[in-house]
């Protein structure tokens, strides 16, 4: 795709209108974030393409999964209590 020194051409172009590029650099605040080839930008969480990912497309934390499992267990326990051990099928704790 490249057969000319396009970098030199780009540099010449930018040097023809330095103010237009200085202004842009100033508006960016000069904040150079480190390169992150693993796209690991959000607090160490890795990129996630599954339905369980959070709003930023990253894996949810361990606490999130613990809460999910705990919620399911609590639901089952309450259901068991209300239905008298699933109508007598479950005879162990808390009965």
């Amino acid at each position, binding site marked *: 795709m490249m057969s000319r020194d396009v970098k030199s051409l780009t540099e010449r*172009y930018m040097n023809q209108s330095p103010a237009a590029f200085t202004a842009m650099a100033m508006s960016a605040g000069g904040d150079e974030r480190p390169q992150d080839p693993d796209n690991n930008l959000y607090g160490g969480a890795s990129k996630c393409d599954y339905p369980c990912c959070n709003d930023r*497309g990253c894996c949810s934390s361990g606490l999130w999964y613990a809460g999910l499992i705990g919620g399911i267990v609590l639901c089952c326990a309450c259901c068991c209590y209300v239905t008298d051990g699933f109508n007598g099928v479950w005879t162990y704790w808390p009965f």
Partner: protein
Amino acid sequence: MKPSISVIIKPTLDCNIECGHCYHTKDERTAERIGIDILDRLFGILSREYESVWFIWHGGEPLLMPFRFFRNAVELQEKHFGRGSGRFGNTIQTNGILLERKFIDFCMDKKINIGISYEGPYNDVLRERTDDVDRKISRLSSKERMFSVSSTISSGTVSKQKDLYELYRKERTSVSFFPVIPAGCAKCGKDVPDADEYIRHGIECFDQWLYDADAEIPLIPYYLYVLSALGEPSPSDCAHASCLTKWLCVYPNGDLYPCGKGCPADFRMCNISEIESMDDAFLTDGFANILEGTIERREKCMGCDVYGYCNGGCSIDAYYEKGIVNNGGDSCRIFKGIFGHVLSTVNGILETRPDLSRYNRFVKDAILGRLINPKVVSQ
């Protein structure tokens, strides 16, 4: 990461009307639709390499894409850039015929700007189905009228700029004016406005807006010219802000071009599937072609009084007018004529310090800002 880039996405070149000035000829306006895989790849690369990206959905008519397409596209943007991160924004430029309330609600929810290409009572000069657009716009409540208007000025409407300003002023709808250039369907030149007429009526319109103390809308590009005259950078005025490397256009098949104005094949950079980084796209022969022509033209421009403000103007305008290596075309003359008037007006205000209450609030605030915080910006 690089600071920012503006990306025009043409999800289709297909359209439901045939505008007289369209950049794309009838043969080019095929039914091809962009795939979601192209968007996924595009957003992935951009999110890794740029702090922020502004997306402008164009075409063709972008609303020919189904509603779920835009919902999926925004979900992809949120996935790659982060929802609520402030790292991306969207504008949709449409002829308005297919605007529906559900889509408008979606745009309000996702903070997507809507631009309608429309010339009010003169819409039939360049476009079609004006009644449909009028019906759509009139049905929108004042809360839903959160769109801006982009009016293309042709030979038939060159003397109507003041009328159009008055109309949109009454509707409190932001408006921008751009002249027809001899490209695509307008190549024969019959719709291209006379440059001297455009300058004369453009200056009249600017003066009307300038002295309209009750104006509630900015008038683009003249408001951007005021900011430029005051030394403020105006990256949204792409034609005069050295756009190369800061703008990109994506076609339905994933081809990348440096601009959305109907670039010739010589300036095709590459296809998104061929690159791993945007740096690769900006190192292609296609990009080198537009760079070389632009550099040569700007060498000729540098002695001009307004070069520091126009930066050699738009390369695509120059390409279609007198050739990319030549200045002095209609776009160049129009900018010199109108900007020259804006610049002398602004300098006069700064020197004489008159009562600023006679000016509209946009100009007043910009002037006050300059007086309170004088900056030296080398041009």
